[in-house]
């Protein structure tokens, strides 16, 4: 519920309550004033009749009877309310009446009753209520209109702040830019948010630097370990001890795994930090064919039937050549890793789409989670489970949609990448290409440079 609606609700509740009380009070007040006035009028008439009686100017009682309600029997004196049937209106009408004793010369004391209709007070009540309800309705309508106006005017800075927050992306390393607000509460809010985002950006930057430094510093000892272990394997004494060599070999293998994990993680963090601004036209069809040829022995080893279908070459995409290489490598490797012996692997590439489908064991779980980091189907596997995560990051970087589907009872897996950016993403691409001039050494490389041959 909106803040304004909430406050208005209480405000209107109070207003209604006050209006009820007010109407009641007003009615009572006006009613009391009218009755008092009525009583005064009756009393004045009484005084007039008594004066006339004293000065003997009264008409005879018989004549009086035609004008007034006169009784020769003693009646209770004083003011009273009574209901009289009105023959014309066909209803009981409330009256105020005053009964008093009137001494006359000729016929002795008679009791006179003066009456006045109170019917006007009911009309009055109607008028009072109508006026009050009218004002209440005006107030309600007015409040709603006022709120609309307020919402669009006074709350506008707040809405702007909210929009800025929604669109905020820490990975762009920008401090939140908020317009200055005239309302002091909003100004304070904006200031607090700006301070917060400054701190966040600084922390993020520190963390990023730390990660980058840590990654870089880890690389060197890993390279040393790998080189020294390889040298250790050459020591002739090692060949004489059949137990020692496999130990060193295992150590060597573990070092390689560690360095591969390290490479994958730093690649991921670099993509997240948008450090691959340098995009150039990449012949995806050539690169794909090259990669397939390179992995051929791996396909053969698993006795896979494989096929590559490229419709309408050349397929050229704008991307970082290193990322293109990594993308295809991870996709193909994933398709081999999750394949079965003697299975199938089909790759098709068109200008719109890259699709890889492979046979494999049925998998359980939510397909969306396959892209999570360190996710692997076989927990005993040597691979750290970062392949698909890297695929997703690279595609996300260029705004391509990745979809996974499964068919034939869960044994045919299909990954599709739409090679056109989503409509929502060009802004990101824009930042990527805008960042390019900051990298002075970016130049095009011959495509052959990407293959480690």
């Amino acid at each position, binding site marked *: 519920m909106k803040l304004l609606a909430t406050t208005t609700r209480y405000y209107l509740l109070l207003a209604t309550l006050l209006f009820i009380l007010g109407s009641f009070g007003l009615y009572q007040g006006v009613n009391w004033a009218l009755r008092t006035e009525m009583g005064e009028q009756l009393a004045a008439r009484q005084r007039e009749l008594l004066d006339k009686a004293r000065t003997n100017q009264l008409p005879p009682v018989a004549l009086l009877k035609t004008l007034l309600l006169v009784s020769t029997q003693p009646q209770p004196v004083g003011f009273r309310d009574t209901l009289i049937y009105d023959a014309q209106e066909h209803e009981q009408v409330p009256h105020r009446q005053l009964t008093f004793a009137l001494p006359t010369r000729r016929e002795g004391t008679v009791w006179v009753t003066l009456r006045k209709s109170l019917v006007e007070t009911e009309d009055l009540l109607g008028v009072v209520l109508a006026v009050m309800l009218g004002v209440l309705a005006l107030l309600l309508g007015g409040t709603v209109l006022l709120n609309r106006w307020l919402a669009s005017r006074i709350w506008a800075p707040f809405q702007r702040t909210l929009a800025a927050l929604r669109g905020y992306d820490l990975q762009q390393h920008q401090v939140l830019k908020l317009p200055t607000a005239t309302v002091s509460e909003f100004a304070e809010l904006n200031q607090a948010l700006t301070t917060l985002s400054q701190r966040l950006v600084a922390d993020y930057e520190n963390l990023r630097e730390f990660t*980058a430094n840590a*990654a*870089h510093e880890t*690389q*060197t000892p890993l*390279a*040393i*370990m*790998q*080189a*020294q272990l*390889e*040298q250790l*394997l*050459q020591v002739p004494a090692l*060949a004489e001890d*059949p137990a020692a*060599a*496999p130990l*060193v*070999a*295992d150590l*060597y*293998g573990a*070092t*390689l*795994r560690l*360095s*591969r994990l390290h*490479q994958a993680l*730093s*690649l991921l963090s670099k993509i997240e930090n948008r450090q*691959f601004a340098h995009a150039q036209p990449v012949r995806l069809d050539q690169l794909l064919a090259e990669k397939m040829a*390179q*992995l*051929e*022995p*791996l396909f*053969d*080893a*698993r006795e896979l039937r494989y096929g590559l279908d490229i419709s309408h070459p050349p397929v050229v995409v704008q991307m*970082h*050549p*290193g990322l293109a290489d990594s993308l295809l*490598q991870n996709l193909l*490797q994933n398709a*081999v*890793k999750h394949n079965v012996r003697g299975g199938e692997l089909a790759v098709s590439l068109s200008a719109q789409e890259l699709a890889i489908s492979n046979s494999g064991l049925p998998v359980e779980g939510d397909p969306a989670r396959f892209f999570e980091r360190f996710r692997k189907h076989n927990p005993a*596997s*040597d*691979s750290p489970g970062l392949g698909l995560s890297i695929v997703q990051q690279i595609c996300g970087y260029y705004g391509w949609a990745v979809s996974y589907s499964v068919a034939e009872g869960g044994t045919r897996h299909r990954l599709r990448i739409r090679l056109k950016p989503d409509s929502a993403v060009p802004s990101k691409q824009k930042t990527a290409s805008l960042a390019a001039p900051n*990298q002075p*050494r*970016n*130049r095009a*490389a*011959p495509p052959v*440079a990407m*293959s*480690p041959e």
Partner: protein
Amino acid sequence: MKLLLVEDESALRTALRSSLRQAGYVVEEAHDFAQAQEKIMLYQYDCVLLDLTLPDGSGLDLLRALKAEGSPAGVLIVTARDALDDKITGLDLGADDYLIKPFHLSELNARLRAILRRRQFQGQQQLVFRDLLVLPDLAEVHVRGELVTLTRKEYDLLLYLLANPGRVLTKEAIAEHLCGDAVDAADSFDFIYTHLKNLRKKLQEKGADNYIRTMYGVGYKLSHE
């Protein structure tokens, strides 16, 4: 063959030096930019092994200096993986090849061999190992004078072994050499085994000695004995 090894990490330099000396190279070292620059100016090398990240300068500047001087030396760049753009720039500047840290020493040997072969013999050369003769330009393999027909991968494998005679080659290094880097080790050992088995069979059919030795649990070795 005289090499200049430019590497700032002393432990890595030591390992590289001993590996390269085992492979029969004369190795000179430089541990920073200034020293490397001095040596490049003073001496001639057949190949420079160049680490791009040096404490007092960029290896790319050394590469520029080398090329500006018209040096005939081959250049093999060694970069960190995250410096992809540097690698591209390096190749543009005229480096012969690149290696990404961390790398297999046996891979380094293979790359160096290829560079030196391309640069110095202009292709007119042959590789001889015991009763084996390889003509790289014709991609021909002869055993005791008889031609052996090998598949592409078997041939690559043999060249890799020949680039590292007497050296223990790990399964991982062979797998990466044949399948490109970052291949999952466990997946690829089967095919190395298959290819090696076929290669051995083809060589022995022509009467070659069994010099491709299996190092149990480690890898393979092209043995002199």
